[in-house]
């Protein structure tokens, strides 16, 4: 028997919400970063779901792209965080507010 599509979508939406709350509330830049990855993966899950549901491979192809870009982005993002840490000796994003006036 097949698992209905709603299950996948609800799981995906839950993961996305967890990601959002993580991004908005956590103080540690690394955790914020992980939350962003969570959101990305929830989007991937949605893509795969619809791909298999519609019998179209395009969605799965996109997921590969997303994973590749996400890997690259993770590398750059982590490098930035390390650079900030070396400068400010913290990764607490409350204290990294140099965008201010």
């Amino acid at each position, binding site marked *: 028997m097949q698992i209905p599509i709603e299950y996948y979508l609800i799981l995906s939406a839950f993961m996305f919400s967890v990601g*959002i709350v993580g*991004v*908005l509330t956590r103080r540690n830049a690394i955790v914020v970063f992980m939350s962003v990855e969570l959101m990305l993966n929830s989007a991937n899950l949605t893509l795969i779901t619809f791909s298999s549901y519609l019998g179209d491979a395009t969605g799965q192809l996109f997921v590969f792209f997303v994973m590749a870009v996400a890997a690259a982005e993770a590398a750059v993002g982590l490098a930035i965080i390390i650079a900030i840490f070396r400068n400010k000796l913290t990764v607490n994003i*409350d204290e*990294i*507010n140099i965008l*201010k*006036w």
Partner: protein
Amino acid sequence: MMINLIYLTVLFPLFGFLFNGILGPKIKNEKVIGIIGSGTIGIAFIIAVVALFETLALPVDQRLTIVTLFQWIDVAGLNIHFAYQVDQLSLVMSLVVTGVGFIIHVYSIGYMHGDKSFWRFFTYLNLFIFAMMNLILADNFLLLFLGWEGVGLCSYLLIGFWYDRKFEKSTTASAGLKAFIVNRIGDFGFLLGMFLIYSSFGSLIFTDVFSRALSFNVPEHIFTLIAIFLFIGATGKSAQIPLLVWLPDAMAGPTPVSALIHAATMVTAGVYMVARCSIIYASAPTAMMVVAVIGVFTAFFAATIGLVQNDIKKVLAYSTISQLGYMFLALGAGAFSAGIFHVMTHAFFKALLFLGAGSVIHSMHDVQDIRQYGGLKKYMPVTYGTFLVAATAISGIPPLSGFFSKDEILWYSYANLGIVFWLIGVITALLTAFYMFRLYFLTFEGKEKFDSHKTHPHESPKLMTVPLIVLGVLSAIGGFIGIPEIFSGEHGNLFHTWLAPVFKAAEIKLMNIGSHSHFEEILFMAISIVAGVGGIFYARYVYLKKPAVADKTASRFKGAYNILLNKYFLDEAYEASVVNPIVKGSENILWKIADNRIIDGTINNLAKLVDNISGKIKKIQTGVAQSYALVMILGVLIALLWLIISYS
């Protein structure tokens, strides 16, 4: 036909101007610059002479040629050409300007020898002749105005030629500025007159305007307005009351400049312009009266100031103003050709007086105070002889040129205006003879008042004395072309007959053929000769025989003497009534209130307002990335909500 090449008299000076202006600083050779500078004027003079003889060969009613160069302005009915009008009047003026101009150019080669800006001097002089020829030969008011402004510019440049020298209380540059600004006031009047001519007659071309002035039904008050406006322009250029204050200060320039521009040519432009517009003036009797009154009063007042001045050039400057007043008196009396005749003879003897003064100043090492001269006769025989000729000519002693022209003016002022004008004219003639011979006796006769150990007066070089001799001959015999008709018979006055066609229309309109007997004319002539001789002998008595008389008279009439010495406080009056209010008003109102408070204040306060508002708004930017993300997500949520709601 050389007449059709008349534009060359304009182009040659232009060439000289460009050549000396562009190459002069590199050549640095005074000979080359001087030859180009005066040679171009000499060629222009020859062309003008040939054109004169060609015109003489033409029948009297065909002596007007218009030479068109190219179209200048063509817009909405206003059609102006660069066109030159060759007729009797413009030929006389061209000959005076190029002829006297050439002589003065040659003289300048000697006078300006060794000056660090020798080339600049000749550049300006050539530009001046170029502008002056445009003024004289123009066939329309606009081209005349172009020349009018051009000579004003050159006058400014040349007055301030020695811009690093002191002049009286300020600098020569500010004297030039004064001349320029006072002239600008007159030019404003000239412009208004030109606008009014265009709106009344629909053209600016002389021949059109003057024929329409006869045929169009234009009310007299319009003519009066036009004539008065144009005359305001003339008072500026020709230094008449009330705009005469600039000419004495113009003496800050080099002496050849004073001779050429501020005595012989440019200042007579006003006389020329009024004579050119004779028909307009003849149609406006009120304006004619204004011209005559201003002229006679200027002649008288300037002569009284000339009595007490001690600077040799200042005396000559006031004498120039006074003689210009005579010319305007002639124009106001309707004796246009007499006015132009005096322009010509005055150009001869006044240029000679200035050049003679220049020669004296040259040899006395820039001392200009006549009280420090004396006895120069034996050191400078040529200067002395020619100066005496010029002084006698200007005093109106027959048979020198000044007698004929001045006497013609005096006669017409009696015949056409009345005995009062004649009387003031004769008194002025007496004053003229007196101050001119005061100048002569103090300079050339009597005891030497300079320190003969320090100063060694010497005759000037040939380059300067030959021009003096040429002008001396002209001053002596120049009057014979205008012998009064009572002596020479009908049409015996060559000058008058020559110019008659130009002024015919105006003279018919004026109908000034008074019935005066020959006895009267000869009587009045005799009186004016007696006045001239009397002035000379009184000057001789006061300044040669009894030098104490002068000081005694001065101290007895101290008040009057001071008023004259200070030129009726005219400069001070203008300073208090016009200059100071403008300067103070500009400083206290325009600068400190209008500019600093209103204009700057508005801008600064606007900037402050923006600064304040943005200072408050900027607090929104916390710099915490998470709060930006929160706002973004809220936005996305609202958008989603809106989509969902709008679907159902």
